[in-house]
């Protein structure tokens, strides 16, 4: 690939500025405001300040985007954070093409979701705490994408993990939601452990050739210092972190449960921004991944497998948010597939478009739930087309986009990924095939969702039906904006914009069959969904009965959660119980108390000798005398 010359050029221009720090600072101010003044000033102030702060950082991001030097980067070094021995880490932020795009997405979509939340959380009494967490999340995400070195990226990394823990468990009174939050944090932590190990290995391998750094630009300059096989280990470890954060195969279990949080949270965190952190990290370290094709192929295979696997589960879910959650896992699989085959630009492009339409889908689902007075089971919905027109049309546009219907943003990014998967030297027809089938399934389950919720007649209980209402303006306006973005997103000149980082992008010339088959399969999926769920719903039911075993397996998510619980959680808890009760209490404490008891036992033995009989003592005298004499004689 043409990475060599691109890397050299990117380093030429780095302007040091001092206004980048305001991007994460504004949301932080929002956090402080909400914590200390939120309750006192009441809901109105909170609803203005929190989105306002995000909007301000959006403006600063735009400003940074405008005067981003061609092919260069903006750097804002604040202070020396940690320096001990050979380790020097500054608290510094940087904006280059990749982070410019990311901060725009984060602040832009974030702002829309903040506005949406003011409407969604209208009747929730704990709004200040909610917006405090949401602002804290935006700040950590911005820190993640702006971080100039791996350590700062890690700070943002764990910060977003914390905020997702807090937001998922926002309605803490319900134990099930709180434990979902805990599960998310712990699974993320497992990923972060892998990330840390990768970071250490990278630091010390670079250290061998006396390059003491963690900042991306310097790593890029001295990337030659990292031998290939060590690079593979580093990339795989970092990929473990990415898999934890972006919910890939082994560590994706937390995302479906994370739906326990409020819907705007799922939109912002579990669709648009946080889950894309893994992809951003790999894209950011593309020069490192370029060193080890094996790592890349692992990323690609895991991505493709997740895409396919999650799509299958999504086919049968009945909870509206669960379907979208599995679709997110699947789309993330596509992004990793793109990165795995070396098509970084395609992956990042899909990341952006996905952010738009997936956020829209979640917000649409939120407005449906809002309207159906917190009902999430699509089997109890139906016929909302007439009652909630704006939500329906925006939801419909998003479904078209995600299904990859030509003309909309999804088509451009997903098909590009599939073509790259086929054409790129790292890719393989097998990956392309899996991707295409996945695309078909995605189209099918998205439109199944659409038809079941919005078409046919309403199956909800009577009193729920009569006060289904269209969401207020504060919710529908963001939906509309996101719908426009989902359409227009495909046309942004992103490929050219990212060229300084990932090298000039060339259209992969591939046989027409390969190029158009995914779209055809997508449209087929839509048609199938239409036939099964609109023309005569009976097909779906008897299909489900027919393959009931297979259906049950899918519906229960391949029993992954139960397996994890049995294989990991229960044994650990069992072992710790054993460790505490047996090892600590009996073995170690036993020996300690045992020593005390033996002392006591000896004491009581000697006491018997002290029985008050004078002649007994005289006898001891005698024995003593004999011993001394014996010693002398001997």
């Amino acid at each position, binding site marked *: 690939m043409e990475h060599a010359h691109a890397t050299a050029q990117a380093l030429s221009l780095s302007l040091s500025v001092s206004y980048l720090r305001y991007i994460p600072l504004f949301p932080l101010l929002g956090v402080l405001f909400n914590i200390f003044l939120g309750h006192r000033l009441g809901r109105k102030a909170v609803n203005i300040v929190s989105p306002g702060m995000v909007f301000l950082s959006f403006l600063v991001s735009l400003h940074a985007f405008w005067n981003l030097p061609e092919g260069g980067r903006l750097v804002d070094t604040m202070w020396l954070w940690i320096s001990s021995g050979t380790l020097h880490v500054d608290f510094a932020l940087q904006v280059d093409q990749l982070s410019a795009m990311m901060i725009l997405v984060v602040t832009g979509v974030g702002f829309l979701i903040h506005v949406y939340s003011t409407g969604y959380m209208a009747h929730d009494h704990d709004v200040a705490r909610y917006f405090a967490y949401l602002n804290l999340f935006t700040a950590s995400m911005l820190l993640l994408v702006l971080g100039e070195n791996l350590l700062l990226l890690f700070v943002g990394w764990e910060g977003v993990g914390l905020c997702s823990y807090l937001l998922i468990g926002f309605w803490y009174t319900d134990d099930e939601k709180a434990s979902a939050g805990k599960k998310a944090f712990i699974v993320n932590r497992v990923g972060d452990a892998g990330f840390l190990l990768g970071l250490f290995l990278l630091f010390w391998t670079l250290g061998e050739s006396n390059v003491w750094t963690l900042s991306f630009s310097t790593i890029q300059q001295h990337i030659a210092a990292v031998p290939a096989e060590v690079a593979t280990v580093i990339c795989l470890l970092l990929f473990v972190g990415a898999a934890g954060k972006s919910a890939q195969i082994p560590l994706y279990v937390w995302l479906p449960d994370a739906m326990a949080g409020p819907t705007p949270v799922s939109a912002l965190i579990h669709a648009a921004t946080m889950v894309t952190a893994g992809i951003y990290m790999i894209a950011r370290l593309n020069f490192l991944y370029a060193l080890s094709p094996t790592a890349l192929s692992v990323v690609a295979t895991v991505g493709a497998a997740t895409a396919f696997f999650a799509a299958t589960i999504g086919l049968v879910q009945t909870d509206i948010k669960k379907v979208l959650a599995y679709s997110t896992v699947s789309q993330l699989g596509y992004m990793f597939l793109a990165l795995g085959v070396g098509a970084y630009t395609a992956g990042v492009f899909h990341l952006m478009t996905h952010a738009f339409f997936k956020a829209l889908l979640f917000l649409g689902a939120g407005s449906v739930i809002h309207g159906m007075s917190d009902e999430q089971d699509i089997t109890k919905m139906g016929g909302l087309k007439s009652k909630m027109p704006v939500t329906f049309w925006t939801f419909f546009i998003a479904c078209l986009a995600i299904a990859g219907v030509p003309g909309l943003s999804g088509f451009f990014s997903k098909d590009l990924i599939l073509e790259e998967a086929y054409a790129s030297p790292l890719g393989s027809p097998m990956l392309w095939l899996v991707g295409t089938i996945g695309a078909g399934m995605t189209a099918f389950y998205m439109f199944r969702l659409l038809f079941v919720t919005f078409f046919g007649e309403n199956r909800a209980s009577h009193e729920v039906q009569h006060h289904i209402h269209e969401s207020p303006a504060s919710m529908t306006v963001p939906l509309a904006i996101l719908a426009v973005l989902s359409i227009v997103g495909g046309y942004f000149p992103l490929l050219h914009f990212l060229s300084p980082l990932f090298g000039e992008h060339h259209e992969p010339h591939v046989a027409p069959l390969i190029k158009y088959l995914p779209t055809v399969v997508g449209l087929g999926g839509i048609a199938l969904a239409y036939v099964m769920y609109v023309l005569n719903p009976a097909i779906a039911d008897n299909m489900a009965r027919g393959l009931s075993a297979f259906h049950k397996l899918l519906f229960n998510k391949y029993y992954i959660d139960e397996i994890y619980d049995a294989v990991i959680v229960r044994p650990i808890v069992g072992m710790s119980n054993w460790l505490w009760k047996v090892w600590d209490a009996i073995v170690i404490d036993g020996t300690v108390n045992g020593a005390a008891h033996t002392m006591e036992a000896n004491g009581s033995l000697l006491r018997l000798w002290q029985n008050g*009989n004078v*002649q*007994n003592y005289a*006898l001891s005298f*005698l*024995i003593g*005398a*004999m011993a001394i*004499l*014996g010693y*002398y*004689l001997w």
Partner: protein
Amino acid sequence: MDLLTFFMLAVPLVLFAAVVILHPSPVYSAMSLVVVMSFLALYFFFLDAHMLGWFQIIVYAGSIMVLFLFVIMLLNLQNDPQEHQQPSLRTASRIGGAVLIAELVFLFSRSSSSEKAAAELPEGFGTVVALSEKLFTDFLIPFEITSILLLIAAVGAVVLAKR
């Protein structure tokens, strides 16, 4: 003190000592102890410790044994046939005693090999003159202390025995 006299004195000494501790009746023990004391006095004479010999008779045989007899009479003790109950203690003491004798005999017999002829005695050895001369020069302080000791003992005995 030639061998013959030594054995003439040693045998009764040991016999009567045995009687002291073996005889059930305390009076007999006391009387046999008096006999032991007198034989010892005799022994001292043969060892040129004339003054001590007399002392022995006066102090030991005379006063202490009389005191014993007086107390025995006061408490009119009957025979005390059985030894104390603890069999383990008795056997242990017997074994102890035997071992002690064996050790002492072995110890002293071994030392006889480095035998040195009895030193030439200075003139007037063991007489009152020599004894008192030394007593009031080198051993003056112990002498005074002993006098105090005896005073305390007397007072103590009186206090204790008073009603």
